[in-house]
């Protein structure tokens, strides 16, 4: 179980006056203090951890966010920013002395400019909401995390979210132009704008992926892109994970960067097929979903080239989608992979390490050995082009021993990722989940450098406490 900083007794003791103070700043329905109504905010996408907060505030404007931050800063109250609460790393896990600042009421799209290919949206707009708002004009917002129906752009910025198509289009950081943020003291700052590459330090890049450690994001200017003429998927199945990995290398060596290149192992293929009936080959050890874009003729040409490459690796099945419906079916299994594993196991932990793709066969072999040793099943699905693994560890949350084993297994996988030259998290963030593994990837000197940057923004360490940095007394202010 994860440890948190001790709650501040002085803050707990002033709970009523803090609630009253918050109520003076926000509309009546914008402050939640009632125990029952705090319940939905006690956890996020990492549901194994739960902790009801002191209070929840739901501001509707940047100015209200600023007022809340100024108040909390004055009162020494910790603040947990929250979007849709879909974090898989416990990024929005509350503390009992903290105020959860939920951005879901800030859900308006403020401006769309097709000529300049950007949109200004509030932090609580869902990821898919941006694409839906611009799709009639043939545009889209590129990063597409699996939770895109629910997750919010503010959370995407905080975690620098990725998705299945980032091999071509990049992650959140590569698709932003500007931010409106509120500092811990409640001051409003505009970063960037509708233009590229502001002179001076890259605050946009530093804040993106900072997991709520530095500022609260209230507005985001995103790049929107024109959709391709069309896209089509194909499926290639192999009788070994190594040979599938070699096939991925061969595709990229040929100069083709597919818009998506997804890899599933046998347990995952089985779970997804049982769930989605996508026609996945059940005798395969590994399967690739490969998607290309362009006109029909271009799709045919690219898929033809890829098919030829795949044939060199003796695929046991090779299926090119002939229609949009068939492509959807191919994707249906992959997009539902997490849910599919949820059907065959009471609970699962979703890991998120990245490895150099050349290490794929070795890492998958080691994961399967670890799985056998600890007696917990694992299904692997991941973004093959960029080496971002998502091993799904199956366990039973009602059995504390099973949960403990799952956590240990997960930590061992992430250590392995770092050992072979990779990292702890490719797109889900450190959160509370991987906080205590940060030493595996960084030296104490490197962590202290990051802590000093945190202190420069948040001298009292009130922002999203007990996350990202292993617990130790912070070197307080940088000055």
């Amino acid at each position, binding site marked *: 179980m994860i440890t948190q900083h001790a709650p501040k007794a002085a803050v707990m003791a002033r709970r009523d006056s803090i609630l009253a103070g918050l109520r003076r700043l926000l509309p009546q329905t914008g402050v939640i203090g009632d125990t029952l109504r705090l319940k939905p905010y006690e956890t996020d996408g990492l549901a194994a951890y739960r902790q009801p907060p002191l209070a929840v505030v739901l501001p509707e404007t940047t100015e209200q966010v600023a007022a809340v931050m100024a108040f909390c800063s004055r009162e020494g109250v910790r603040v947990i920013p929250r979007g849709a609460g879909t974090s898989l790393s416990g990024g929005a896990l509350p503390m009992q002395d903290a105020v959860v600042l939920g951005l879901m009421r800030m859900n308006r799209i403020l401006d769309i400019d097709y000529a300049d290919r950007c949109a200004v949206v509030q932090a609580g707009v869902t990821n898919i909401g941006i694409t839906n708002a611009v799709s009639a004009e043939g545009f889209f917002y590129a990063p597409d995390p699996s939770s895109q129906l629910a997750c919010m752009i503010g959370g995407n910025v905080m975690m620098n979210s990725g998705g299945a198509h980032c091999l071509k289009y990049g992650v959140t950081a590569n698709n932003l132009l500007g931010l409106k943020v509120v500092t811990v003291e409640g001051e409003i700052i505009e970063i960037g704008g509708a233009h590229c590459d502001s002179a001076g330090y890259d605050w946009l890049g530093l804040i*993106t992926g900072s997991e709520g450690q530095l500022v609260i994001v209230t507005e985001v200017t995103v790049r929107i892109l024109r959709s391709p003429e069309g896209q089509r998927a194909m499926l290639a199945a192999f009788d070994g994970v190594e040979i599938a990995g070699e096939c991925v290398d061969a595709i990229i060596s040929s100069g083709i960067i597919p818009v998506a290149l997804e890899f599933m192992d046998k347990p995952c293929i089985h779970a997804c097929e049982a769930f989605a009936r996508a026609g996945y080959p059940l005798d395969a050890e590994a399967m690739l979903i490969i998607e290309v874009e362009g006109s029909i003729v271009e799709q045919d040409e690219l898929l033809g080239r890829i098919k030829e490459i795949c044939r060199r690796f003796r695929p046991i099945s090779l299926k090119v989608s002939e229609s949009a419906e068939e492509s959807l079916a191919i994707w249906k299994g992959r997009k539902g992979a997490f849910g599919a594993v949820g059907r065959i196991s009471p609970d699962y932990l979703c890991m998120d390490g990245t490895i150099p793709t050349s290490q794929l066969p070795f890492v998958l072999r080691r994961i399967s050995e670890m799985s056998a040793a600890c007696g917990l099943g694992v299904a692997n699905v991941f973004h093959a082009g960029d*080496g971002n693994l998502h091993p799904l560890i199956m366990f039973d949350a009602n059995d504390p021993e099973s949960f403990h084993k799952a956590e240990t297994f997960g930590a061992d996988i992430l250590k392995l990722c770092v050992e072979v030259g990779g990292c702890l998290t490719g797109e889900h963030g450190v959160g509370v989940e991987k906080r205590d593994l940060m030493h595996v990837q960084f030296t104490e000197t*490197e*962590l202290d450098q990051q802590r000093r940057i945190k202190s420069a923004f948040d001298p009292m360490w009130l922002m999203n406490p007990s996350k990202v940095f292993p617990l130790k007394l912070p070197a307080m202010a940088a000055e």
Partner: protein
Amino acid sequence: MPDTITLPPAPLDEAEIATAITEANAARMPVWVCGNESKAASMRPVQAGRTVSTRNLTGITLYSPTELILSARAGTPVAEIEAVLAARGQHMIAEPPDFAALFATSAPATIGGTVAANLSGPRRVAWGATRDHVMGLRAVNGTGEVLRAGGRVLKNVTGLDLCKLLTGSHGTLGVITEVTLKVLPAPERRATLVIPGLDPVRGVAALSAALGSPYGVSAAAYLPAEAAAQVPALSWIGQSATLMRLEDFASSVLYRSGRLRADLASFGLAEILDEGATRAAWASVRDATPLAAAPEQAIWRVSVRPSAGPAIAAACAALGAAWFMDWGGGLIWIAGPATEAAHAAIRRAATEARGTWMLFRAPDALRLAVDIIPPEPPTLARISARVQAAFDPNGILNPGRLRAAPRTDR
């Protein structure tokens, strides 16, 4: 006559750099952090008692084409990296410029300097800046500590993103000693659509239509007649040139250039430049040679939303300055008189358009007299000073390179 300047000895490796910085920090001695000093004429001059150059830290340390990853020590010339990539059919995504001519230097630009300045070429508008492709780096901070940021994989959100912070920090937060870049396959074929004779507003409208098309336009620039005349591959036009580049497999370039030409017919009939002319024309745009800046002139870079580009251009024309637009109209390159009045006018135009600006090259007198980049609002300036102190508590790394030292409010 060949260059015969004798350079002072420079550290041979990262450990020596760390030692040099540790000593300088102990002595509170300001350090001029540089590579080959090819961009010394850019930004503000640094008054420093000692120089720490990464020019001896050379060599590619990792290149894995199938993983799309390349690492090189900071002093490695960009041209060397490009040659190694080209031999395997790959390229640097952000298309970094070669400003040797602009800065009148024969020193080859290093990868460390290119990253420290976050320099990106025409492909930036479609594929992102240099900062978007720095996957990892190593650096020495202002107390001599060695730091690693990021890694050698394509997706990594572990901890605060110091790669982004150090990229573009011009050596003021740390001495970058090694960088790891994402690279991509180079295109099989290139072609450029040229629409002659549009005015700046129509030109940018055409660029926006092209960049908003489904054909994957990889660069988009507008050159007024005087700028186009400076580019041999375009000199036949004799009027303004609105340029759009396609890079892809040969069959796609053929198909897409036909479609794009038809879609843009209302702007005029586009000519199509072949591979050779495309390479030559975009190398000129990348290196800002269409400005034909005289040595005594100042050079500015203004970045605004693309539709605001023509207003900046009009302000330049009123000053009698030369200009052209890259990044679909969003980047305006300007060459004009090195005066405070000209600087103030350009700064005002960029600020009114809610964009950013940079005095990119100027005689020392001007770059010491004015802000060369926008001042930060007070709240951000306070955070900025604390972040700088978090890396370099005694302010020894390239002091004054980005901004004059604040008077007493620090």
